[in-house]
């Protein structure tokens, strides 16, 4: 079957956003905006979150300064020889909810995953003026094309759950929670029925 007849308009006219976020860049984002991210983002999922918070509990420095940064919830497949990275789509975000308010208090400005966040995280995002973005779950092969480099930063023994720094170009995402507290999943479920 040829899949070439599928030509999504999604990838046209995306709002271009640099990461880490520039001052005031988040002010203009509205829940439902389709955006493309270019720049640097850090990665982390269950184990990285657990370990970052354990370091904070011990009063130690984190391996990265999260101020102004975007944290992508991903555990990629291993790169084959010659590849930058394997499949690298988002994991479900709610599992990070228990840790997110603490990381937001360090100045983290955005998180990227899939699925809705808890009320507590939404409230913490409003207080610290941070956004939550979703990208396309189960599109790991496609999204790997937007990742231009991957560097291991910490927690190597956690395997795919380690903390990496990605250089990305035109990485597609959707604004779920904006600074005004709107939630695109709530909006979509009523408006796009």
């Amino acid at each position, binding site marked *: *079957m040829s*899949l*070439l007849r*599928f*030509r*999504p*308009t*999604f*990838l046209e006219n995306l709002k271009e956003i640099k990461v880490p976020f520039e001052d005031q860049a988040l002010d203009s984002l509205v829940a439902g905006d*389709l955006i493309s991210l270019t720049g640097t983002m850090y990665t982390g999922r*269950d*184990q990285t979150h*657990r370990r970052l918070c354990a370091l904070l509990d011990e009063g130690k420095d984190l391996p990265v300064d999260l101020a102004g940064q975007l944290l992508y919830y*991903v*555990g*990629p*497949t*291993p*790169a*084959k020889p010659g*590849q930058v990275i*394997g*499949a*690298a*789509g988002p*994991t*479900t975000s*709610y599992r990070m909810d228990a840790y997110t308010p603490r990381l937001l208090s360090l100045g983290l400005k955005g998180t990227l995953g*899939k*699925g*809705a966040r808890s009320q507590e995280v939404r409230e913490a995002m409003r207080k610290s003026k941070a956004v939550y973005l*979703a990208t*396309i*779950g*189960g*599109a*790991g*092969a*496609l999204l*790997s*094309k937007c990742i231009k480099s991957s560097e291991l930063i910490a927690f190597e023994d*956690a*395997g*795919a*759950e380690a903390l990496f720094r990605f250089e990305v170009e035109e990485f597609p995402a*959707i604004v779920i929670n904006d600074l005004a507290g709107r939630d*695109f*999943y709530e909006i*979509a*479920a*009523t*408006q*796009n*029925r």
Partner: protein
Amino acid sequence: MREIEGREITEAVKSIVIDAACGLEPDILDALVAARDRESCALSQNILDLLLINADIASRESIPVCQDTGVGVVFVLLGQDVKVIGDLYAALQEGVRSGYDEGFLRKSVCDPLTRVNTGTNTPAVIHLELEPGDQIRIFFLPKGCGSENMSGLVMLPPSAGREGIVNYVVETAVAAGPNPCPPGIVGVGIGGTFEQAAIISKKALLRPVGEKSPRADVAALEEEILSRINEKGTGVHGFGGNNSMLAVHIETCPTHIASLPVAVNIQCHAHRHKEIVL
């Protein structure tokens, strides 16, 4: 008796482990195309387009469709006239281990308490059954846990009846929202015991996507539940529209006069599965 070497089984499992991760089968691709063509929400239709392009890139370039290459679930139907030379379970596990290793697939299996990764993606979950004949049929279902985590099981009182079943399945699928990467498949197991309901709800996912139950009353139940879920408007990835789920597959099993177990096993749109016959 037909003799089959353990290493032949290992090689067969390894090949389907690698193939399943990178190539979606025609049943799920056709279901996604059909959903794309009937999608009412423009954004959701765009996402379905991207998922089809993703599947195309994955199969052409041998990149996993999704980075969650799953916990390996292996259903083995062993012909009772087959004599396996060697340790069958070890041969199956070695096939899974070498497939994840050589296929550059993610190792996602860890101790439930310490959370330390086993480093091999084993042990896989193996369901072994005997059947007549001298073949071995092996079904491999790498199960992503974004969807697995949205599953549920309830022991309903028999008085809850058909309505109770419909309500529980619909509530479970709708409460999952965007988390399990919809539109996927809802595997439902009704009857049996606590564990049997769960196992047949997983087995329901092995049916070709959208194939109806051969029992007319069960097929009607599948249709009603699917339309109830899709009326709620969760849509593709929670972005709205009329494709929250692609299919509901129900398996049933006789149960105790006091019981009505209902298990719901949610599967994502990246429904990877592969079968081999030895």
